[in-house]
């Protein structure tokens, strides 16, 4: 009788992460979940804009002062930022690594190739992801730092927001990027359940329906603010 030997090389060996494509997928899924949870908190904060300038600005201030005086200024914010940067880097690393693996796996393209099952969302995961990343960098420079904002760095968060979205070109860029992000999430949520081994034939439909509804609501929430500014509901 043939006996297979199991080699126990201790916990958390980096060797596995380097060679195993499924482990890369898990890194992608977990970092994706972290960023998704952040987006939910983000959209809730955004909606404070409808409570007025003071409410929005004081919320922005609260994010920086929460926990004081027990912890120093901006402690919570700094922790959130570190977690997010780690998540973005991990997500990006896994994506690039799997992208290169896929390229190497099919060096010769088909002359004719039909796609019968893939959705627009799944087709745009890679380049869409890159565009979303560029958007996030610009978005931080615009509304967090103010470096590329029409009102500049010396302004309140509310002023920066209104100044940006009163420009239809900036609003258009946000809309395009957010729709791409929505499609990214729509395929991402489904993909997470598969990668973490939580999907099955029965759940497939529910997961996909949930992914669609969730992404639509989330992106709808994000789009509410720029459109409200553009149409003068918020100024």
């Amino acid at each position, binding site marked *: 009788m043939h006996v297979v030997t199991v080699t126990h090389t201790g916990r958390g060996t980096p060797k596995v992460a380097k060679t195993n494509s*499924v482990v890369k997928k898990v890194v992608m899924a977990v970092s994706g979940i972290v960023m998704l949870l952040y987006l939910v908190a983000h959209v809730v904060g955004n909606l404070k804009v409808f409570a007025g300038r003071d409410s929005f600005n004081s919320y922005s201030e609260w994010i920086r002062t929460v926990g004081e005086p027990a912890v120093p200024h901006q402690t919570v914010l700094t922790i959130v930022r570190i977690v997010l940067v780690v998540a973005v880097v991990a997500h990006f690393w896994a994506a690039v690594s799997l992208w290169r693996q896929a390229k190497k796996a099919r060096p010769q393209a088909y*002359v004719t190739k039909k796609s019968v099952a893939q959705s627009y969302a799944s087709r745009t995961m890679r380049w869409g992801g890159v565009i979303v990343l560029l958007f996030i960098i610009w978005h931080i420079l615009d509304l967090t730092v103010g470096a590329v904002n029409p009102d500049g760095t010396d302004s309140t968060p509310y002023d920066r927001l209104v100044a940006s979205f009163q420009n239809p070109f900036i609003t258009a860029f946000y809309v395009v990027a957010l729709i791409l992000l929505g499609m990214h999430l729509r395929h991402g949520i489904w993909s997470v359940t598969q990668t973490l081994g939580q999907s099955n034939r029965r759940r497939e439909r529910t997961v996909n329906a949930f992914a669609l509804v969730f992404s639509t609501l989330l992106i709808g929430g994000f789009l509410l603010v720029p459109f409200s500014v553009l149409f003068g509901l918020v100024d």
Partner: protein
Amino acid sequence: MQSSVGNTDAGKRGMNLTLRIWRQKDPSVKGKMVSYKVTDISPDMSFLEMLDVLNEQLIMQGDDPVAFDHDCREGICGMCGVMINGEAHGPQQTTTCQLHMRSFKDGDKIDIEPWRASPFPVIKDLAVDRRAFDRIIQAGGYISVPTGTAPEAHATPVPKKDSDAAFDAATCIGCGACVAACPNASSMLFTAAKVTHLGLLPQGQPERDDRVVNMVAQQDREGFGGCTNIGECSHACPKGISMETISRLNHDLLGALRAGARPKS
């Protein structure tokens, strides 16, 4: 390059088709698409019989016939398989041998290419080397049992639900259509079908953790791409293996890694 072959009483009842076929003499040379015309093709012919007609004509003309893999021609061996107009095994969810010419119409142009994946190098024309799949199986797609008299069937009861799901996965014939259809050239559906088939049965339990880590490690070593859960594989699979098997593989793999199983190097 265009050469015309076919019956002399062309086009009376059957279909006239233009085929563009990938011709490649051997792995060392570059291939290209070459056009051929076939005439009077009966809608009752299988796709492979249509290629047989073409090859007879090519042989009569003294040309090199098109090489393609085939064996049982009953849709159960997994030997045949080509990309037909950009779809693995063509427009029907079946094997190439069970695809019939009634799926096409007179005057159609049909592109025929081999499976494209670096672990499946072209041997000649439409025939590819799929031994990468054999090596994935050798890495863990088996169970170890003492030989001798078959055991009493009732000694190991299997729940109906499990045996059904295991059998669904066991219908995989290893044709490679999943890899061919996958935008990433990933072999996940194949490996997942084997992991599901053996992992759901009591006989598969002793090696379950080692099986999944070793088979996944082997498919990475072979150079297949990673799964992005797009679903082209399941759609192209002549046996309709479901994406659920991939989720089960992932679940098993994470459990096995947590339990300390590591691939053999």
